[in-house]
Structures are given as C-alpha cells and as structure tokens.
C-alpha cells in the first residue's frame, strides 16, 4: 500500500507540485485536481516536471476540473490518466493514506 498525493494549486503560481514530486516515493500516486489540473497540460513550462515524474509515480487528473476550465482531454500529457469523482474515491480507497499538497 502506498500514498495518494493530491495537488490542487497551479504549478505556475505555487511550488506545491514541485514539492509533491520531490517527496513522492516510487510507486505512489499523484492526483491533480482543482487548479492543479494545469500541470497536466502538454506544451507548458511545467511539462518537463510532470513528464520526469511519470517514470516513478502514477499521475492522475480530475476530469471535471479540466472541463470546468475549458481544457480538452486531448491536451493532457500522454501517460496521465483522467479520472472522475468515482475514480478519485477508488484511488483514495486503494491507497494507505492521502497526503494533500496545498
């Protein structure tokens, strides 16, 4: 059992994503939600951070928060899985604990 990390802040405004990825151990999961979903976009200045993490952690993004912000799923970095609220619940249940990076 490992940890589910959640990031809800924009990577362009806060260091929450960098701090999370710097502390997420191999095999853990990271869920991007609320303003954290901007980190899932391809061709941004934050893209390399997330791509580099995909080798060691599973990365998920919350679909409803993408849609609220007008961000199409086609723009999500390949390797990141889009989940809905039910998927969020499953992730929380599958992992030993949830650690939020605010």
């Amino acid at each position, binding site marked *: 059992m490992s940890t589910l990390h959640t990031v*809800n*802040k*924009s990577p*362009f*405004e806060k260091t929450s994503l960098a701090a999370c990825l710097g502390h997420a151990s191999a095999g853990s999961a990271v869920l991007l939600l*609320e*303003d954290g979903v*901007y980190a899932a*976009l*391809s*061709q*941004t*200045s934050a*893209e390399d951070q997330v791509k580099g993490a995909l080798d060691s952690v599973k990365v998920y993004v919350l*679909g*409803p*928060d993408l*849609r*609220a*912000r*007008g*961000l*199409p799923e086609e*723009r999500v970095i390949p390797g990141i899985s889009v989940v*809905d*609220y039910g998927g969020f619940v499953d992730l929380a249940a599958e992992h030993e604990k949830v650690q939020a990076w605010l």
Partner: protein
Amino acid sequence: MSETIKNFLYLNRKAPYGTIYAWESLEVVLIGAAFDQDVSLAFVEDGVFQLTKNQDTAAVGMKNFSPTYAALGDYEVKKIYVEKESLDERGLSLDDLQHLTWEDEDDDWAEKDSIRLVTRAEMTAIMDGADVVFSF
C-alpha cells in the same frame, strides 16, 4: 460630480474557480463600468486561463461565469490586454481563448475585437500608463 475621467486598469493574475479572485474581479469591473471611466483589463500569468473557451462547470457544482466576459463589450469595456509570454508558458494561443468583441457606434456598429495580444514589455507600459490599478 467630478468630470475627470481616469484610466482604470484591472489586473488579473489568477486562474478561475480555484479561488474567488477571477469572479470578484469580473463583478467589480461590471460595477465600475457604470461610472463612465476609461477601463482596461489586463490578463497575465494564470489570469489568462480565465478567458479559455468551452468552460463547463456542470460536474464541479460551481457557477460558470465565463459567458459574462462576452458581455463586457456591452458595458463599453473594449480594451482587454492578454500577455503573449503568459500564454506561451501555458501552452496556449489566442485560438484557445473566447473571441470577445465590442460594437463601434462610430463605425456603423461594426464588431471589433476586444482582446489585444501584447508582449510583456508592452504590458509594462500599459501598467505604467494607468491612473489606477485594481489587482486581483
């Protein structure tokens, strides 16, 4: 009442929905528009995300206030500056943003673009030229 017209700049730096800043800014702009001032809006950093098209908040249970930006032209808000560097850093282009327009009564009500894409240097000059800057 004083007839001095001031140049108001509303500076938007936050993404929508994650915090209330974007919506609050829009509300203040609409209220301020009733006072016959020279109004400009600036969108920099994560503020550019406020203007993306196709926002759909149905699944998150929040009000989608993005259609309101299209009404700004009716409130005589015709100058909406978007910083190119901020778009580039976020993988966005003008095509990802709403097409916002205003109607020019001096030109047979021709529809004209409200959004003006500017460089960071140009945005600096716009900020310097403002009489008052409201920050959100």
